[in-house]
């Protein structure tokens, strides 16, 4: 298989080298460790993504690529963005912080960041929220990392315009093994939109993505991800989020296209007092997709709060798992899960798996409501009696079912998600 890459050729400090070596050894030991969930993937069938040429402007990307990434809210017109990161296959081909946000935002590849601040990164952020030996996919990224984005918002900076990042794959039969880090320093606020996309001609492949997010005291990170994959493509994201006192993490995830399999179960640790985690998930299961998604929230800090809402609609022969785990570890915490699904095909399967635990926290208030049910006939008739044909009535109700009110979403992105949902609903009907 592939050779082990050195993540930091310029690092010289003994502590840094020792930790990097430890990460490597942990990863090597886990190189064949299957994931706890999801179908196993034979990593030997893929090669690593290739290098690409850098570009001077996003406008110079092929029109087809620009249109594809726009589906995820990534726009070549940067006037409504504060910063951009675009990675094509292995290469970060474009990074830019708009002038108005200079000094507030840092955007670069994680490998550049590691070389720039090795001690700080390794001590505080590098594989601190996700374990390198969690499974073979974390090990793959730890041993054969192919860049990934580093975004840091400086203390107190309130970045009104979204920061956008895109991880693009343009070739088949490869793995893209990215390691992403987002740091919001104390009091910072930012809205990060990321899209993972593949070229329309790409069929098979694997995206393994490690994401480590650190939300500082009183900081607020809204992270929105719209995924567009392909029918033969596999995806294994591994995400860890750590939220400090009074910090807020809002996660919006939207999957509207078929995928061979995706399995992700991000872990959000609400370590700070009064910290908050909010998770909104919209999933369309299409064709033969195997989708296994959920979130684990650990309520550790006193007064921490969490809410998770998931809406899943499955068609064709898709299999969808909608998980949610809440673990209360402090007496004064409160969390709620709300997952609802509609199964639209007799060949499709859905699982809703809420999972609550109170660990030594008698005062923890954890609750869930999970439901899988069809569209109620009386609702369809109600809309029909206002003059709407049956298929349009069903489409409007399905669209309404998945349209979660997502706070903090920029209006153009909200509109593009709504448009995508509308198109998917129509196609699926």
């Amino acid at each position, binding site marked *: 298989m592939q050779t082990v890459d050195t993540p930091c050729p310029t690092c010289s400090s003994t502590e840094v080298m020792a930790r990097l070596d430890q990460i490597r050894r942990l990863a090597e030991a886990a190189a064949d460790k299957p994931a706890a969930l999801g179908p196993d993937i034979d990593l030997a069938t893929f090669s690593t993504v290739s290098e690409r040429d850098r570009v001077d402007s996003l406008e110079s990307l092929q029109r087809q690529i620009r249109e594809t990434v726009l589906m995820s809210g990534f726009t070549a017109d940067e006037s409504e963005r504060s910063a951009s990161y675009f990675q094509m296959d292995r290469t970060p081909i474009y990074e830019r912080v708009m002038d108005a946000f200079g000094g507030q935002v840092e955007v670069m590849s994680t490998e550049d960041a590691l070389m720039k601040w090795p001690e700080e990164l390794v001590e505080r952020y590098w594989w601190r929220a996700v374990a390198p030996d969690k499974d073979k996919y974390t090990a793959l990224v730890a041993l054969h990392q192919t860049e990934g984005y580093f975004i840091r918002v400086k203390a107190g900076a309130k970045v009104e315009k979204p920061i956008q990042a895109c991880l693009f794959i343009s070739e088949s039969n490869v793995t893209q093994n990215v390691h992403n880090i987002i740091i919001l320093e104390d009091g910072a606020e930012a809205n990060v939109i990321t899209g993972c996309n593949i070229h329309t001609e790409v069929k098979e492949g694997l995206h393994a993505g490690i994401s480590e997010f650190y939300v500082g005291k009183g900081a607020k990170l809204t992270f929105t991800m719209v995924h567009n994959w392909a029918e033969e493509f596999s995806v294994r994201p591994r995400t860890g989020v750590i939220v400090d006192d009074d910090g807020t993490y809002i996660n919006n995830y939207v999957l509207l296209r078929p995928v061979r399999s995706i399995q992700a179960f991000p872990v959000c640790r609400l370590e700070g007092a009064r910290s908050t985690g909010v998770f909104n998930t919209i999933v369309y299961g299409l064709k033969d997709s195997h989708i296994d998604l959920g979130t684990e929230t650990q309520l550790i800090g006193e007064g921490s709060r969490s809410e998770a809402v998931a809406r899943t609609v499955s068609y064709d022969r898709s299999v969808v798992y909608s998980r949610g785990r809440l673990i209360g570890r402090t007496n004064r915490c409160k969390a709620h899960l709300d997952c609802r699904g509609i199964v639209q095909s007799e060949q499709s399967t859905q699982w809703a798996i809420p999972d609550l635990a109170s660990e030594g926290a008698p005062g923890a208030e954890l609750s869930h409501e999970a439901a899988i049910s069809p569209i*109620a*006939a*009386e*609702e369809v*008739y*109600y*809309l*029909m*009696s*206002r*003059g*709407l*044909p*049956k298929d349009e*009535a069903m489409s*409007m*109700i399905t*669209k*309404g*079912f*998945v*349209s979660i009110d997502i706070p903090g979403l920029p209006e153009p992105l909200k509109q593009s998600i709504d448009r995508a949902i509308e198109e998917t609903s129509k196609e699926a009907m």
Partner: protein
Amino acid sequence: MAESAALLEIEGLRVRVGEREILKGINLTIREGETHVLLGPNGGGKTTLLNTIIGFPGYQVVGGSIRFKGEDILPLEIDERARLGIGVAYQRPPAVRGVKLRQMMSVSAGGDLAEQALDDLAEQLDVTYLLDRDVNAGFSGGEAKRAEMAQLLAQQPDLALFDEPESGVDLENVAVVGGAIQHLLKGDRASARPRAGLIITHTGHILSYVNADVGHVLFDGQLACHGNPLDLIDDITTSGYEKCVECATCKR
């Protein structure tokens, strides 16, 4: 004065729900501009008649006919009947998550209601604050009725059906809903046919606000007697439905 044209013509209508025949030969003609009131005990078939006109599945027509504007509507789907000009205000409309009252009003108007007109309508029925909420989700009795009226006013149907518009509603809201019904049915309508209405009521409270022309008592699946709606209600209040049905004087 010449009689106005017949809008809804029901002849010999027999309807079965499951194994049970609920309507046993209904004859009813509603002409343009007329407002009819349907009275009768619970289980007598009033809602069955309404739902059969709307076209809900599960109401099996085993005899007779329903014509609207001269067209046989029995083969038509619910939405086709609505687009032909039949509107309804439900007694207990379902909550539809994710679909806003604003969307329902727009749909009711066939998608061509200007934003300003929609806002004006909403203000008229005091539902402005409900426009961007999921329709009927957590609405109080009065809110649900006002939201129904807002949709009906947006739709502007030629025949409007009302299922117990005053039930579960306080007096203040009965006035708002009643005013809207009166406005819909009797308001000026230049260059178009006068509207007609059919109102199911138990108490007749709504008739303080709406001028109804004819009342009918639906009893045991048949229209048993007809007359001035307020007189009929008086008779029923003093003597009960059965007496009213037996009473020869109230039969035409």
